[in-house]
């Protein structure tokens, strides 16, 4: 016999059932067990302790019913709990993930993950003169860095010599000043370019700096077929985000395709481009925008190379990518996993690539410079560790960890070493490199990965409708999308809806730390070196090489045949010019005379 007390309790439970949290059943089909959990355990807990948003209980942190809302860094709502009910009904490992090293590569491009080879620890570095930067490179290599990554100063990035009026006050400040082949020789003195891989963050003048690099390698006696490294060479994200462009888009794209063709013929192990979301994210985009715009930039490069007549499987294996690692741990991991899958489908289905290497999205990751606080800078070490871990769990091929003092200045040697040590702790102590894609199969991570993919493909459709990325840039579309996202984030941060430790919460009074200070002496020294070079070199040979370059640059290239590059490919002419010790500024000026320059409308 059941007591009346029991019946009462049961009746009470029934009323509670009607009050079960609406978000559990809205738009999803939980199992009976999950439903029971929601109606009983969860409902009771919510009655006793309502959920509280992380950050101020306003704006983005409240849903339409005035209840706590939890969102990613990019503002996407996140559920309380993810279960099988959050994956598509037909979801299965085989159908949606595949295995590592197998299509669609969601779980990684290597069948052995990091067990065969760890990611490359590659620290971005460069400041002041080539001499000082060479010293820093030797230090980083001695500290256990696997590869180098060159940061150039703004005059170099913009194609001006150190003695140009526009370079005043800028020489050696944001990176190393490189004016001529002589500087490049100093930069890599004592570094064996056949053994060390080098990445170069250079875009508009990419072919010029690459030619200098190849000339140094040649002088060292290194075989071009063996050298490996990465040229950033991603001009589209310059128009979209970082704004270091010189020539108009079509002409810039032609120079990029010239490097694809040259690389596919002569430097088969060199990545001729690093298609970069990093800068798009730093400019304030969301994670989805970073993913979508970056991969679509990749589509645009392939389209332009195919228009030239290049075979997709010839150059696509040397396309590489570069993503940001920001604060929202799972959102970032989902982004990398989705990126691999999308790129596989793009290459195979959209472009008909047959070479498996063309399908693989290989990427470098850098932790988010923009996330670092100038306040209590030492805590940035913790931020960087979390971000770097996301990159590793997302399956990155190489990684740069930011130094803790980078919100204030270029890093000191000690800060740079600490950043490298952070990666080493992840690699050698944490155990995360033991197994492949350890988060694969997590309901949350798989759901996020699918959401990322869907959001990116939605942008793809929009960009296709606009006629491609160059057209979209001319309309200011990605620029405006990013500016809007950036402002929304800043607004949420000002309202403390999004918390930044040390900047808008947990603030203390403090002294500024010691940082690296780069004075103006390097500018004077570079100017003196240029003056002497212009006096010593064969100026007739320089003039001849620049004229030949201008002639080629004015022609319309079609793909070369018989293992040769097009007669109009600018790379061989740029190589001749750098070997004659023509400067970065002189070569870029020659191209400016042919192509003109670009100015964007000021979008705010």
């Amino acid at each position, binding site marked *: 016999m059941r007591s009346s007390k029991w019946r009462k309790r049961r009746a009470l439970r029934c009323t509670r059932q009607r009050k079960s949290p609406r978000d559990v059943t809205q738009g999803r089909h939980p199992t009976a067990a999950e439903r029971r959990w929601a109606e009983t355990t969860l409902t009771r807990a919510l009655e006793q302790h309502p959920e509280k948003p992380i950050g101020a209980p306003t704006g983005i942190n409240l849903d339409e019913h005035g209840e706590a809302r939890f969102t990613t860094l990019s503002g996407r709502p996140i559920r309380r709990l993810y279960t099988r009910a959050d994956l598509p009904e037909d979801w299965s490992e085989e159908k949606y993930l595949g295995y590592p090293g197998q299509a669609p590569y969601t779980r990684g491009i290597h069948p052995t993950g990091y067990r065969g080879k760890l990611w490359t620890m590659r620290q971005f570095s460069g400041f002041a003169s080539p001499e000082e930067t060479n010293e820093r490179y030797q230090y980083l290599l001695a500290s256990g860095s696997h590869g180098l990554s060159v940061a150039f100063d703004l005059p170099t990035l913009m194609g001006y010599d150190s003695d140009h009026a526009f370079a005043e006050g*800028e020489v050696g400040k944001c990176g190393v000043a490189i004016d001529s082949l002589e500087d490049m020789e100093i930069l890599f003195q004592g570094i064996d370019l056949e053994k060390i891989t080098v990445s170069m963050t250079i875009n508009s003048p990419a072919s010029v700096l690459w030619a200098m690099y190849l000339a140094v390698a040649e002088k060292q006696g290194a075989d071009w077929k063996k050298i490996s490294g990465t040229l950033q060479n991603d001009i589209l994200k310059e128009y979209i985000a970082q704004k270091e*462009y010189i020539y108009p888009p079509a002409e810039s794209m032609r120079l990029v395709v010239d490097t694809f063709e040259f690389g596919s013929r002569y430097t088969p192990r060199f990545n001729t481009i690093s298609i970069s979301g990093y800068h798009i994210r730093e*400019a304030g985009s969301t994670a989805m925008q970073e993913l979508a715009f970056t991969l679509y930039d990749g589509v645009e490069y392939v389209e332009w190379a195919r228009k030239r007549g290049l075979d997709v499987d010839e150059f696509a294996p040397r396309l590489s990518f570069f993503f940001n690692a920001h604060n929202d741990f799972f959102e970032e991991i989902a982004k990398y996993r989705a990126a691999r899958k999308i790129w596989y489908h793009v290459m195979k289905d959209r472009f008909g690539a047959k070479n498996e290497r063309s399908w693989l999205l290989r990427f470098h990751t850098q932790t988010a410079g923009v996330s670092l606080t*100038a306040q209590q800078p030492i805590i940035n070490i913790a931020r960087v560790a979390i971000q770097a871990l996301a990159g590793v769990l997302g399956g990155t091929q190489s990684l740069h960890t930011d130094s803790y003092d980078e919100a204030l200045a270029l890093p000191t040697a000690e800060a740079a070493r600490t950043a490298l040590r952070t990666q080493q702790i992840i690699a050698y102590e944490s155990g995360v490199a033991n197994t492949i894609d350890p988060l694969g199969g997590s309901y949350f991570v798989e759901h996020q990965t699918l959401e990322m993919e869907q959001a990116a493909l939605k942008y793809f459709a929009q960009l296709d409708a606009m006629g491609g990325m160059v057209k979209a840039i001319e309309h200011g579309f990605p620029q405006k999308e990013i500016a809007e996202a*950036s402002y929304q984030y*800043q607004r949420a941060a000002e309202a403390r809806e999004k918390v930044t430790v040390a900047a808008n919460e947990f603030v203390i009074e403090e002294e500024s730390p010691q940082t690296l200070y780069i004075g103006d002496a390097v500018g004077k020294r570079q100017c003196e070196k240029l003056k002497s070079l212009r006096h010593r070199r064969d100026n007739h040979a320089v003039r001849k090489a620049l004229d030949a370059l201008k002639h080629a640059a004015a022609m319309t290239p079609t793909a070369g045949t018989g293992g040769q590059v097009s007669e109009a490919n600018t790379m061989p002419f740029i190589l001749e010019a750098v070997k004659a010790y023509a400067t970065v500024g002189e070569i870029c000026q020659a191209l400016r005379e042919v192509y003109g320059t670009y100015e964007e409308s000021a979008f705010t």
Partner: protein
Amino acid sequence: MANENRIRVLVAKPGLDGHDRGAKVIARALRDAGMEVIYTGLRQTADMIVNAALQEDVDVIGLSILSGAHNAIVPRVTELMKQQKMDDVLVLVGGIIPDQDIPALKAAGVSGIFQPGTSMDTIVQFIRENVKPRGVTA
């Protein structure tokens, strides 16, 4: 129609650097705070900035510099402003400015320097409190 009581601000991005996230966010925040904002776009020389400020008859010039070139650029702007007798225009600098450079920039005529992590609200308040009163109008 321009409202005569509105504070007019020129947000400028001098030097070679193209990192314009901060400039754009500030431009929008000042606009949302009721100010008239003119954003110059990238790579403005000191001449271009001072000319634009004169043309637009602004009360405030905000320079966004992240590249470390402030010691070369800022004194050039303030010098040109002196030549043009623009003593009533407030000059602000935002960006990555090392502490040790602040005294020289202030001596050159900069009223406010905003380092990384400054809130938009702080800048809005600073402008409201420090903007110089307009000359007597007819």
